[in-house]
């Protein structure tokens, strides 16, 4: 019964999508009400399912014959285990908050209903992905999530930047997807199943091991790298900020990027079975490097959303790092807490942008007084991100660092440095935005006298409400992983097993100290102004230039992959017109030249076998025509020669 209910969880938003798509403005609240209603209904169902799982029914399953192959139905379906239940809750709850917030944020947009339709589809796809008990559904959800991000990033497609960004996002992630797909194919080819449980069983029984398994795992991880924007496929994420802010929140918190982490977590058993955890080591290092690199780039961004974007890459890196060092629970825990505080940060940033009409932090300042709700909630989010006790981020990040320390000290140090940088850029952002002097001119009445003329205001309730709700989550959820409460989250995730991860006070202290140092450094530069940021920047040459140029990833891709493909395709087109088609002609022309046929034929004939026939045949015909002189004596001669030839031919045989 409950498992059948689980089908409804993605179905509600999916139906909402079609409803809104077709009936749009005629629906209550121009479709927003439908979308939110569906989302809340899903959230309620998710809760029901969650408690069911909590009650011990693990995992819940339900299958459906999606197609038949060789007269055998391919039974595919959904399952809910602890991981799934947690993710369902995160997606539906955070999603609901973002939906509600959007009502305010998107107010007055000409494609308002469309926006909610896409959001619903986005949520539905993500929920399908989470519920999948097999690679196919996982992949379907995975791709649909990508589609929705494409649609939503490019929602304001009139802006060329948005259109470009949406395409970049889709194609970059699709490159990852192809690896993912190849991984699926490899697994299906060797194991003959698409179901997770059967795959795990087969892997554990050793039917696929060693290099094959490693290859499969790495291919699958390739998908995660694309989806979760890890180095080197992270380039799409910052550009994706061209989408409306709620979209960014949804992408960064609950759906798109979380999918990659979720996938690795879901397939953790498979990754863990690779020889000497090689696959996990790769995961961890990719995560660690992404975390550090993205954090350093975030430091030099002036666009408030881009700061967030790089922060997301960085935090996702943390999650992978956690998973990679065998901190299964830690990674997933961070995924959950991050969902809350990052959604919060984005929505708050959206609130700021909504008020200011710009993304540029350098044109803000002193907003704390104007928009207190936003300020305070964002501060909570910021502290959670920085990993300050007792906010949610502290607990999850701490757990990851503890695991790292136990399994890979170099990664621990990398994480630690990153945590300093994280705290630094978060506070830099807060100082730029909310504190200090105003760097904007108050409005003088008529809007449009210049871009400085803005009138910042607190956002409406429909936007601040979700902010506060998420702030509560960001502040309190960490305690689910608190050691003194017995780490209930970890136990739940491990289905009651005793977990190895334990709290290490020394690490907690060190990381807190590092985070505080980061905050202090930020304050020193941007609040107390002991040092000029420019001077610091110079001091850190060439490091800072690298960070500003985003480690040149975009440039390299532009010059190699993008131009490479475009040029190849152009060259091939020319090739197609002139060579493949022309080759036959060439033979024709050569033949014409060879036989010295002097008739001139239409030069426009540049194409195809038709023209081979055209050229050669007409040329031959022209040449033969010369024999057809119209003079009887020639004809008679041909009779004689013909007879002679026939005699000769007959004799020779």
């Amino acid at each position, binding site marked *: 019964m409950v498992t059948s209910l689980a089908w409804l969880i993605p179905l509600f938003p999916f139906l909402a999508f079609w409803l809104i*798509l077709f009936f749009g403005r005629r629906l209550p609240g121009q479709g927003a009400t439908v979308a939110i209603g569906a989302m809340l209904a899903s959230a309620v169902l998710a809760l029901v399912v969650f408690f069911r799982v909590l009650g011990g029914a693990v995992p819940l399953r339900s299958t459906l*014959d*999606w*197609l*038949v*192959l*060789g*007269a055998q*139905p391919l039974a595919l379906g959904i399952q809910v285990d602890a991981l799934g239940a947690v993710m369902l809750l995160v997606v539906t709850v955070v999603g609901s908050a973002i939906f509600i917030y959007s009502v305010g944020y998107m107010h007055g947009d000409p*494609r308002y209903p469309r926006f909610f339709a896409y959001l619903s589809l986005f949520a539905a796809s993500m929920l399908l992905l989470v519920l999948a008990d097999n690679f*196919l559904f996982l*992949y*379907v*959800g*995975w*791709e*649909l999530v990508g*589609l929705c991000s*494409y649609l939503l990033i*490019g929602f304001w*497609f*009139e*802006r*060329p930047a*948005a*259109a*470009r960004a*949406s*395409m970049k996002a*889709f*194609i970059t992630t*699709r*490159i990852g997807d*192809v690896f993912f*797909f*190849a991984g699926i*194919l*490899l697994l*299906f*080819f060797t194991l*003959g199943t698409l179901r997770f449980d059967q795959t795990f069983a087969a892997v554990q029984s050793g039917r696929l091991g060693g290099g094959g398994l490693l290859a499969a795992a790495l291919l699958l991880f390739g998908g995660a790298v694309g989806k979760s924007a890890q180095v080197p496929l992270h380039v799409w994420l910052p550009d994706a900020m061209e989408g409306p802010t709620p979209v960014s929140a949804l992408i960064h918190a609950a759906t798109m990027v979380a999918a990659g982490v979720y996938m690795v977590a879901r397939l953790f058993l498979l990754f863990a079975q690779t020889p000497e955890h090689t696959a996990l080591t790769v995961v961890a290092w990719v995560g660690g490097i992404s975390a550090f690199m993205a954090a350093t780039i975030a430091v030099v961004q002036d666009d408030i959303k881009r700061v967030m974007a790089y922060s997301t890459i960085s935090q996702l890196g943390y999650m992978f790092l956690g998973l990679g060092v065998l901190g299964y629970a830690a990674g997933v825990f961070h995924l959950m807490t991050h969902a809350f505080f990052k959604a919060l940060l984005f929505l708050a940033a959206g609130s700021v942008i909504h008020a200011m009409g710009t993304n540029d932090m350098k044109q803000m300042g002193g907003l704390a007084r104007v928009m207190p709700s936003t300020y305070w909630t964002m501060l909570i989010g910021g502290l959670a991100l920085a990993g300050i006790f007792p906010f949610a981020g502290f607990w999850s990040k701490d757990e990851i660092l503890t695991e790292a320390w136990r399994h890979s000290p170099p990664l621990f140090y990398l994480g630690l440095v990153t945590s300093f940088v994280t705290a630094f850029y978060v506070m830099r952002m807060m100082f730029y935005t909310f504190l200090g002097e105003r760097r904007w001119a108050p409005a003088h009445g008529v809007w449009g006298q210049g871009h400085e003329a803005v009138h910042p205001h607190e956002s409406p309730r429909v936007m601040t409400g979700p902010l506060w709700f998420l702030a509560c989550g960001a502040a309190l959820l960490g305690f689910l992983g608190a050691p003194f409460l017995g780490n209930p989250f970890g136990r739940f995730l491990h289905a009651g097993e005793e977990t190895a991860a334990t709290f290490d006070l020394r690490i907690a202290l060190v990381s807190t100290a590092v985070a505080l140092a980061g905050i202090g450094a930020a304050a020193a530069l941007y609040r107390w102004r002991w040092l000029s940021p420019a001077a610091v920047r110079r001091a850190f040459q060439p490091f800072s230039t690298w960070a500003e140029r985003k480690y040149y990833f975009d440039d390299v891709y532009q010059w190699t992959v993008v131009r490479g*493909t*475009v040029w*190849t*395709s*152009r060259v*091939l*087109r020319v090739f*197609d017109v002139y060579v*493949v*088609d022309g080759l036959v002609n060439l033979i024709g022309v050569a033949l014409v030249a060879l036989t010295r046929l002097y008739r001139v034929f239409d030069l426009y004939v540049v*194409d*195809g*076998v*038709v023209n081979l*026939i055209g050229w050669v045949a007409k040329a031959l015909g022209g040449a033969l025509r010369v024999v057809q002189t119209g003079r009887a004596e020639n004809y008679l001669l041909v009779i004689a020669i013909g007879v002679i030839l026939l005699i000769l031919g007959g004799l020779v045989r």
Partner: protein
Amino acid sequence: MLSLMLFLPLAGGILLLFFRNPRAIRGIALGASLLSLYVAIVLLGRFNLRGGMQLVESAPWIPSVGISYTVGLDGLSLPLVLLTQLLSAVSIVYSWRVELRLKEYMFLLLLLQTAMLGVFVALDFFLFYIFWEVTLVPMYFLIGIWGGPRKEYAAIKFFLFTLVGSLAMLVGILLLYFNAQPRTLDVLSLIQQQPLAKDLRLATIAFWGFFLSFAIKVPMWPFHTWLPDAHVEAPTAGSVILAGILLKLGTYGFVRFSLPLFPQVFQQYAYVIAILALLGIIYGALVSMAQMDLKKLVAYSSVNHMGYVMLGVAAAAAAYGQPAKAQAATTALNGAVFEMVAHGVITGSLFLIVGVIYDYRAHTRGVNEFGGLGAILPVYTGITTIAMLASLGLPGLMGFVAEFLIFLGAFGVFPALAATGLLGIIITAAMFLWTIQRIFLGPPNPRWKGLLDVDTRELVALVPLVAAMVIFGLYPRPLLEIIDTAMAAVVAALR
């Protein structure tokens, strides 16, 4: 019943010759087409999923030569018949506004419909060949009379290319005929007899005869050069039928004839054919990307998609005699046939979409001349986006299921080739998204301010196709179940 379905359109076509009133002509054309579609649906109702070849109707025709009129349906032909019916009806609806030589136009469309249906249901090689060739004639006229600026060139090129192949196939058919005991042109009994199994030299000749015919029709790389010309110059309905159905004749031939009749030879050359398919996949996608003409772009994407189909077929062929690979072969074949239907629906709708903007609105197909249409034509944008997404293989839409199955199966046989083929998926995605971006996104181009969105007639033509994409994309089982039994039988026969 099957014959009724088969000849209804032709009967309608002949009937409308006696009318002058354009409305009557259109009405008769659509009526005949829909009636035939209705009969097809009735037949679908009678179709037994496990029944193999069924609803067979047979009558002696030219007994002296062993030719009979035999038609029948199985899981391979039924989906293609339905596709034909659907696209033909859609084409007639779309062509409602054609005024130039309307009577001839509708007659040719209906004749074409009968011919295409005939190819799919014929179970006698002579009958098959007649229908196969008859498809060329109306198409020649459709391109030649109602086509674009280079219509004459495109029409004759199409005709010549495909005729080369057809005649090569005729030689193959005759080789089969004379080696059968007793001599017959009945497809089923020839498949059962395997007349050329004992003489591989002749079998090879016959195989390549068939191959040439089908490969030109598909078209496989490097026989594809007729396709862009024909597609671009054909009128919209012509392009729809050309891409949606006529290309399928080739792949249908591979599955229906080449695979069961010459399994050994096909296996021998499967790798070569798979490489050609792969070239088609990547080449088609890349060349399509560079096109500035929307129709050409869609045309080259067909080269890419038909490459997938051929990859699946080649994979199945390579699995001959290897029971261990039977599962992969079945999967690949299922995918290939599913892709035939999917490509028909998707590319058919894409050509309609191009027609909508070109025929009655902008009168240009230059990809770069548009921009920002998304704000001006929201419905049109939506439909186009769905179709293009389906074409690039987005899950939840029809194209994905097909590509998924093909790769799933092909990977079991040609891992390296299949993996390389995945590149095509990326390029196709990039190509279509870039196209969407250039046409629909960005600031609205003031030049197109006054364009009207899709009208009812066009919606009636497009919605069934889009619905099919979504429905079979989400739940492919009904369609796949029909296909699967037939494909399992083909593979079983290969062992």
